[in-house]
């Protein structure tokens, strides 16, 4: 970010504190981020279809674009763009119109705090982790707007389920995230990478971190509405939940949001527990920046692959079971992890000879 501001201020011979270089720098960042999310989402959707197909003894998309249907998502996106813009009768037009944007904004904002490599981060927020967790819950507001404005009972049910589920699962997720915070002593995401570069991956730091990582992963599945927690859009019960009435471009925003939030959740798992852009036994921060990005993306896609495997293997939970799982199992175990880690840290214990 600072690099970009300096570049623009030098280019136009302006003061680096001025408004114009700042605006230009932000525009470039946001534009490239939007492009990245779109390309990533298209790839992830293609990947999801391929993973699903191969689990289900099919091939999935094979025709569009030649090699294994790589252009299928592009074709689908173009189709969605050209579809008629339908707003159902009786819908609250403004809310119906704004809901996909609100949903997308929440997740999109989370991207700006992710450190992709050393120095490759749009805004280096000191409370970066806190920011991502908080801004992600803005999405719920959009979903409730969508469900309410659609004037469909299925949408309303999906939205209410989403609200109940996401709000409940933020608690165990946040508690699980306290564990790495306790160890590293910072909310700044860059610090996690630096710490893990020095001390090795956090997930192996003590036995409680492994449990905390699992808890966060499960809670993030619920937060992303991924199976087995896909109740807000449970297609066998609620047709497709809160986006039942959406089509075309607006629907694609919900789709984009789902995959983007998967990315953010996977990025947090990778950054906080799996070393981020660092590798064990080597000094990645001394390497060129693209290496860090590739390492982080590889870890993120490994986590996303796991999310997909789970989605196509497991049946769906019922809403009371989802709640019970969050409050009766994940939350107490998360608390235990925090206490255990605090104990480990204060006593200075090590469980692995590292």
């Amino acid at each position: 970010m600072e690099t970009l501001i300096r570049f623009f201020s030098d280019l136009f011979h302006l003061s680096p504190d001025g408004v114009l270089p700042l605006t230009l720098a932000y525009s470039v960042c946001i534009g490239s981020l939007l492009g990245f999310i779109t390309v990533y989402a298209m790839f992830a959707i293609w990947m999801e279809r391929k993973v699903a197909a191969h689990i289900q003894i099919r091939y999935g998309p094979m025709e569009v674009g030649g090699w294994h249907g790589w252009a299928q998502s592009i074709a689908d996106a173009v189709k969605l763009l050209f579809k008629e813009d339908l707003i159902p009768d009786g819908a609250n037009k403004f809310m119906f119109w704004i809901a996909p944007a609100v949903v997308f904004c929440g997740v999109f904002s989370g991207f700006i705090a992710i450190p992709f490599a050393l120095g490759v981060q749009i805004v280096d927020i000191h409370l970066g982790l806190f920011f991502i967790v908080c801004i992600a819950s803005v999405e719920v507001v959009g979903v409730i707007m969508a469900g309410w404005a659609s004037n469909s009972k299925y949408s309303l049910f999906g939205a209410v389920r989403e609200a109940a589920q996401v709000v409940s699962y933020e608690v165990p997720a946040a508690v699980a995230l306290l564990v790495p915070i306790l160890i590293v002593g910072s909310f700044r995401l860059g610090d996690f990478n630096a710490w893990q570069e020095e001390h090795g991956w956090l997930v192996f730091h003590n036995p409680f971190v492994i449990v905390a990582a699992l808890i966060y992963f499960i809670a993030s599945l619920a937060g992303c509405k991924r199976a087995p927690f896909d109740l807000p859009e449970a297609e066998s019960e609620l047709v497709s939940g809160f986006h039942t009435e959406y089509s075309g471009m607006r629907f694609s925003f919900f789709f984009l949001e789902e995959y983007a939030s998967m990315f953010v959740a996977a990025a947090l798992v990778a950054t906080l527990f799996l070393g981020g852009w660092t590798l064990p036994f080597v000094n990645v921060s001394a390497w060129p920046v693209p290496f860090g990005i590739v390492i982080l993306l590889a870890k993120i896609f490994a986590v996303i692959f796991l999310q997909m495997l789970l989605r196509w293997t497991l049946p769906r939970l019922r809403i009371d079971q989802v709640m019970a799982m969050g409050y009766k199992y994940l939350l107490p175990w998360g608390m235990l992890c925090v206490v255990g880690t605090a104990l480990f840290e204060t006593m200075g214990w090590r469980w692995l000879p590292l």
Partner: protein
Amino acid sequence: MEALELYAVDDRADVYTEELKLNLGPQHPSTHGVLRVELRLDGEIITAARCDIGYLHRCAEKIGENVSYLQFTPYTDRMDYLSSMNNNLAWSLTVEKLLGVEAPPRAQWLRVIMAELNRIASHLIAFGTYGIDMGAATPFFYAFRERESIMALLERPSGARMLYNYIRPGGVAHDIDERWLPDVLAFCDEFEKRWAEYNTLLTTNKIFIERTKNIGVIPRQMALDYGLTGPVLRGSGVKWDLRRDVPYLKPYDEIEFDIPVGEGTHGTLGDCWDRYWVRMLEMMESIRIIRQAAVRVPTGDFVEKAMLKMYKSPLKPAAGEAYMRCENPRGELGFYVVSAGGASPIRCRARGPSFCNLSVLDALLPGCMIADGVAIIGSLDIVLGEVDR
């Protein structure tokens, strides 16, 4: 909120709540066709339910009064379209009873194999769609792989993949080719391995068990009171199977097989899991029956010679009536035919298992959550083609 159709139930409570009326279907992914269920909901809890059927009514019984006895066989295919062979069988047996003829031994044994193969195919659909109802899409594709092999097997003698019109009054329509029986046995070996796969994928899944145990419990007496049949009845622990109790084909007397019944393995006896598990076990029993039958198919005619002559002119049974019932994959399918001596019956009535089993739904749904309602509808395994006929 005024746009939603809401009913006030109790405005004196501290928190103002309203009852929500929700239409499940007729266009809905989990109603297995065009079933419409009108739900009254208190939040996620169903307080009252009412089934609305008839969207697929095609006057099958009335058609039966206007076509000849042989012409009606294809119409029975289209009732419970997932178990056409069994429907053909029930109709053929009824007409044979009316005429007082019996199919030759070879046809009887072939009928057993066909009916059991089709039973497996039908239970596979029940298994696969039940997975989808539970949110697991993958078992469906595994089930369809095996169903595909069964359809390929049944296509060879009958020429059709789904609506066979193969078992006809007097015997079967065509003889099998000489490679058919070995291929059926090879399929049996293959299927046993696949069946174990289904269990690791879905049956033993913790989430699946949690979703189905203690849900939609039909106690033994309730099952009998509602006249339920088939796996739904056996899931409640009633050991009643026409193949054993009223053998309508001679081979069923000579073959060894068990009648799986629900045992309340994971919860209460007669819950969704029991019904599901009875279907799974029945597939293996069908494999056992096919294995024994395939090595014992005698040589000889595949259709009664006396009947063959009657095929040339319209079949005119003497005045009288006949009722025959068969154990279909979904329960007892019975046909009641009244003949006045003409070329077509004056009354042709079907007692469909899906229709009778569906009657219990209204009583099961209240008190459940929406997701349980979907699980219950799936566990009854209805085919709307036969509910509405």
